[in-house]
């Protein structure tokens, strides 16, 4: 925040903050207990070669994918747990169930969905639009009608939009070419390897040369999607001169019973193409959310990352842009919210590997109730990437005195002809600000919410309206502890 800080919020507010925090936790537990199990198939807990084979068998996969999984499993066994970031010692790989299939498409209308599921969606703040999808209701949500109309048009243009399991079956050559081969490899780290072994679901999107999709593609538009897995694999290929916006919503809280989410997102942005990947994630508070997301950005192409990260116990997430073609550009816009007991280790990685590449990173965090948020950035400009420009801005907001915000920007520049900027600001919500807004008739909570909303405004304005509204609401709810 640019505003000068005069005083931290008063003792009264701090007390209220702690109470809110407890209320929030209380709900997380109660909510989890109340959630029903509705899986039709579920693998045994833990990970072994046999489990990996079972997953592949259950999915009826071709041999090449089974082999890929088994090779990834070997990498998983071999690689160590990363220790350079947040404490992961509470993560027990053998207590996790790696595969489950839900009762897909069981309910034909929203009216048939059991009340407990409906209530859960309501409580955890899943947008109305997504609730129907999550419940496996197909053909009821109005956007689907919209999608249905558009789909033949896209298909005519050669657009492929399906879940990744279907892609393995229908488009094996493409999957073989792009799936964890060039962008993210299973040999990189333990969680990428684990993902390779047990991945399930996710989105496969191919946009052919020169095709511009002018409406954002959203997960819940996807037909026949399996609401599966916290190891989803998203693979996006935007061919030369094409453009697309893809949005993943708050699908997470369903997978409450498992304590690990390790997704992989791989994006290929070909020459002159443009891609925007937007995600708002709200995890239940016992989840380790450890993702690897990366884009390979070619000549004159643009990759934009817009992300909001809520909930979870520990989140490690550093969307990465590899600017490999001349004139490639990356925009990173991220907000992380760390409440009581939460540790958000998020940031951005950008590799400038070609001349005249540009990156612009805005990372915002809110820590409250003792939460810890860390910006961890890696910016690398290699020798020869002349004329490259990078700007990093980290803004942290802390409404109390018991929370933590860290900034760890790592910058390695081997080229002299570059322009670099880095700003980091930490703001508190000052007593004077709250007084000012209250003197206009807003309650203390409304005043605090408004300051927080203002802080997030640069992110909110890059989101479609429904997501912006939802993000504001979710954050206000988190901070108020009004869940439940």
């Amino acid at each position, binding site marked *: 925040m*640019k505003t000068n800080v005069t005083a931290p919020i008063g003792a009264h507010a701090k007390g209220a903050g702690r109470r809110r925090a407890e209320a929030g936790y209380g709900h997380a537990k109660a909510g989890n207990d109340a959630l029903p199990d509705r899986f039709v198939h579920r693998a045994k807990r833990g990970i072994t070669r046999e489990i990996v084979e079972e997953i592949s068998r259950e999915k009826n996969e071709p041999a090449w994918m089974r082999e890929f999984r088994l090779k990834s499993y070997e990498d998983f066994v071999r690689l160590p747990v990363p220790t350079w970031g947040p404490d992961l010692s509470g993560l027990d790989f053998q207590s996790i169930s790696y595969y489950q299939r839900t009762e897909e498409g069981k309910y034909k209308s929203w009216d048939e969905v059991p009340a407990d599921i409906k209530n859960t969606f309501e409580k955890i703040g899943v947008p109305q639009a997504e609730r129907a999808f999550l419940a496996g209701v197909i053909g009821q949500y109005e956007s689907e009608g919209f999608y249905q109309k558009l789909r033949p048009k896209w298909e005519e243009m050669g657009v492929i939009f399906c879940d990744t399991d279907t892609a393995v079956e229908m488009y094996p050559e493409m999957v073989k070419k792009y799936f964890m081969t060039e962008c993210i490899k299973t040999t990189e780290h333990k969680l990428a390897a684990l993902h390779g072994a047990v991945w399930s679901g996710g989105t496969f999107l191919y946009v052919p040369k020169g095709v511009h999709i002018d409406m954002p593609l959203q997960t819940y538009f996807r037909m026949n999607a399996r609401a599966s897995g916290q190891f989803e694999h998203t693979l996006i290929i935007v061919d030369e001169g094409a453009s697309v916006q893809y949005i993943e919503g708050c699908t997470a809280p369903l997978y409450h019973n498992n304590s690990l989410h390790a997704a992989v997102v791989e994006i290929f942005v070909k020459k002159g193409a443009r891609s925007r990947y937007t995600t708002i994630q709200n995890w239940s508070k016992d989840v380790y959310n450890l993702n690897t997301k990366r884009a390979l950005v070619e000549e004159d192409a643009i990759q934009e990352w817009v992300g909001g990260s809520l909930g979870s116990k520990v989140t490690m997430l550093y969307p990465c842009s590899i600017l490999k073609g001349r004139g490639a550009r990356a925009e990173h816009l991220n907000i992380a919210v760390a409440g009581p007991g939460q540790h958000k280790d998020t940031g951005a990685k950008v590799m400038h590997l070609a001349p005249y590449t540009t990156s612009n990173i805005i990372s915002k965090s809110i820590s409250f109730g003792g939460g810890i948020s860390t910006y961890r950035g890696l910016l690398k400009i290699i020798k020869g990437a002349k004329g490259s420009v990078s700007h990093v801005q980290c803004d942290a907001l802390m409404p109390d005195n018991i929370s933590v915000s860290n900034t760890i920007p790592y910058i390695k520049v081997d080229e002299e002809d570059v322009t670099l900027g880095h700003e980091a600001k930490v703001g508190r919500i000052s007593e*004077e600000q709250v007084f*000012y807004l209250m*003197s*206009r*008739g807003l309650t203390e909570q409304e005043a605090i919410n408004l300051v927080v909303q*203002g*802080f997030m405004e640069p992110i909110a304005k890059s989101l479609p309206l429904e997501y912006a509204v939802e993000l504001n609401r979710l954050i206000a709810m988190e901070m108020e502890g009004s869940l439940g």
Partner: protein
Amino acid sequence: MSTLTIKNLHVSLAGKAILNGIDLAVPKGATCVLMGPNGSGKSTLGNTILAHPAITITKGKITFGKHTLSKMKTDEIARAGVLLALQHPQAVSGVSVTNLLTIAARKFAQPKSFKMPHFRQNIKDTAKALHMPDEFLTRSINEGFSGGEKKKMEILQLALLPAKCVIIDEIDSGLDIDALKLVAKQISKLRARGVSVLLITHYNRILRWIEADRVHIMHKGKIIKTGTSALAKDIEKNGYSAYINA
């Protein structure tokens, strides 16, 4: 409309006594001026009326009609119709005055005729009357604003929310003469609506355009002299020393 009454008010800030027995009344529809040298406690009085959290009332009370303001929270006081134009308005990043006003307006009991689109138009019209360019309505409030722009922003908000009594703290500092006239015009409009005004100022300047019913001189946390607008003129000519040392 009600009378703002302050009775034997003692106030401390960070453990230090600032106001030492203030008695003051702003009758409904009246305009009272509070003058005094720096550090006399004028702004503290304004902040006390709005229940600033850093201020402690050690004795006395403040009422506004049937409301006991000294027992209410800042937002409740505001919603009772007592509004304050701050001496140092705060910047709020990412929140425009339009955002703030549309949220605030819903918090007040509004007449049945209140319509949001109409209110939005009022914001624009009032800004225009204050010669504020449109961009000020959509930019982050007070962020990077000059002193004068901040003061106009305060008057804009007071003019648009359903005020019954306004406390205006040093609105004249940082304003050039043209801006001061525009601000005075808005204050006169409030008065014409029957809003009572407590004007806190160092100088007589603004009183050229605003007729005061009463002028109070404050020193060391006490009202030491009460008179008419002639008192303000005398101070402009002779300074405070004659009264302070009396």
